[in-house]
């Protein structure tokens, strides 16, 4: 049966698949950078001594982490246009949804990172004349980030795999592109196998990097 495989269809559809992969990568990168930025702010808010801020951040994080991602994707895609009156498009909706959703996960990682920095470091910062915000920026966050780098990257691998869920709203990522190509050539099996291989290679390379990073420390 494998002899029936027609590899030429894969070669022919490579440019089309590449455009899908480009969106997948764009979505991953946007959600990672935006998510880490928002997540860090959320972590600071959650650890803040200002009670309403801490409560709000805690609720946001808990809610996001307790709902299946595919539901959040659908919900955003369907409800936001109702509220704003203008359709966003599947791709834009996905970018926003993933950033907001991943922020909750990155927030918990950054919180652990901030708490991993010893109290002595904070006291040392004060003792050489740093204010709270200077301490945060120059002493705590750089160390938190460094300590948590392997975990942040692992979360990003999960994020990369989860991007395939935009299938639900028809955004054209790698998976969707392969489906379209498979239908065009009437060769769905080749496409599914090939796409799985692409996901595997990228994820495996990333995990290998993470493993090396954490071993080096």
């Amino acid at each position, binding site marked *: 049966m494998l002899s029936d495989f027609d590899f030429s269809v894969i070669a022919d559809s490579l440019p089309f698949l590449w455009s899908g992969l480009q969106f997948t990568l764009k979505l991953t990168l946007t959600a990672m950078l935006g998510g880490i930025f928002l997540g860090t702010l959320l972590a600071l808010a959650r650890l803040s001594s200002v009670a309403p801020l801490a409560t709000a951040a805690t609720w946001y994080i808990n809610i996001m982490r307790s709902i299946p991602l595919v539901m959040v994707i659908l919900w955003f895609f369907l409800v936001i246009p109702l509220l704003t009156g203008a359709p966003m498009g599947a791709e834009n909706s996905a970018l926003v949804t993933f950033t907001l959703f991943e922020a909750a996960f990155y927030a918990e990682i950054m919180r652990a990172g901030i708490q991993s920095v*010893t109290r*002595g*470091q904070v*006291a*040392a*910062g*004060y*003792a*050489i*004349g*740093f*204010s709270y915000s*200077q301490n945060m920026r*120059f*002493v705590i966050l*750089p*160390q938190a980030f*460094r300590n948590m780098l392997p975990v942040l990257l692992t979360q990003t691998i999960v994020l990369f795999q989860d991007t395939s869920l935009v299938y639900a709203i028809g955004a054209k990522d790698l998976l969707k592109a392969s489906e379209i190509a498979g239908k065009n050539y009437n060769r769905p099996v080749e496409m599914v196998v090939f796409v799985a291989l692409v996901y595997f290679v990228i994820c495996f390379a990333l995990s290998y990097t993470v493993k090396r990073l954490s071993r080096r420390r």
Partner: protein
Amino acid sequence: MPLLDIDCISHAYGTQAVVRELSFQLETGQIACLLGASGCGKTTMLRLIAGFERPATGSIRLNGVTVADTNLHMPAEKRRIGMVFQDYALFPHLSIADNIGFGLHQKSTLEIRQRVDEMLDLIGLSNRGERYPHELSGGQQQRVALARALAPEPHLLLLDEPFSNLDIALRERLSLEVRDILKRAGMAAILVTHDQNEAFAVADVVGIMREGRIEQWDTPYNLYHRPATRHVADFVGQGVFISGEVLSRQSIKVELGILESDVPMECGTSCAECGRGCRLDVLLRPDDVIHDDASDVLAEVVAKSFRGAEFLYTLRLDSGAEVLSLVPSHHNHAIGEQIGIRLAVDHVVGFPNRQ
């Protein structure tokens, strides 16, 4: 005007009083040490001065400015008090030079470079500026921590058990080195430790702390030779108490003879009141008891410990009381042997009998 004026400071964690109405003063350029067993409140006192805790009562004045009292609390980062921590707390993500220059962030790049070089020079690590903390030995990290604290030219430097993470040989060398660096920088400092050798090596003046109070604030010499309380006498140095009887204001009879003192006996207020015939506990240091073959007072060797230049003998008197004696180590006597001793006490310290 003293550089630092601690007036009647108290602090409690919950209902547990940790520092009780503590007062002392520190002059410019002076190095002080708070010495005490763990839990005596010495580290808390340091945190109060640094601004990491707020006192319940009293006030702290630094350079004539009140930095803390019951209504006022100047934040730690505004006090210009440097601190060296037990675990050094160097910033692992920064090079040695960046660690030292970190507190100078409001200065120009050139000024920072100059000051960092000056500091690296002071601690003898001139060519290590580009290294990272984990690449240095414990002693080197300790000196970097000192340089980092000194770089912004603080009014006062606090050191929290700074040598406790080092091995003993290094501890002794480094404590002298730290004193030397502080003196060259003209820096006033307060050290906190439970190790009296460290305290005596580094500090000009030592406060013996117990249960949140300072029992005696004095020079190392006076703490050893003129302890103000029984606790200080016990805590500082070695020694034993033997019972004695007051003959006059200047003489006490003990089992080994009569002790004469040129100055009135240092035994607090109760001693003078006590008067003739009163019973006292007299402090005998190992250097007060001298081995002398010509003496007809004999004592039995019960234990001995070799110290290199001398032996520390534990000797039992006829009455069963034990005293310590430091003897040059070529006088090697066996346990069980009777040896002659005499007293050479030029300063009698006695405390009211415990019973």
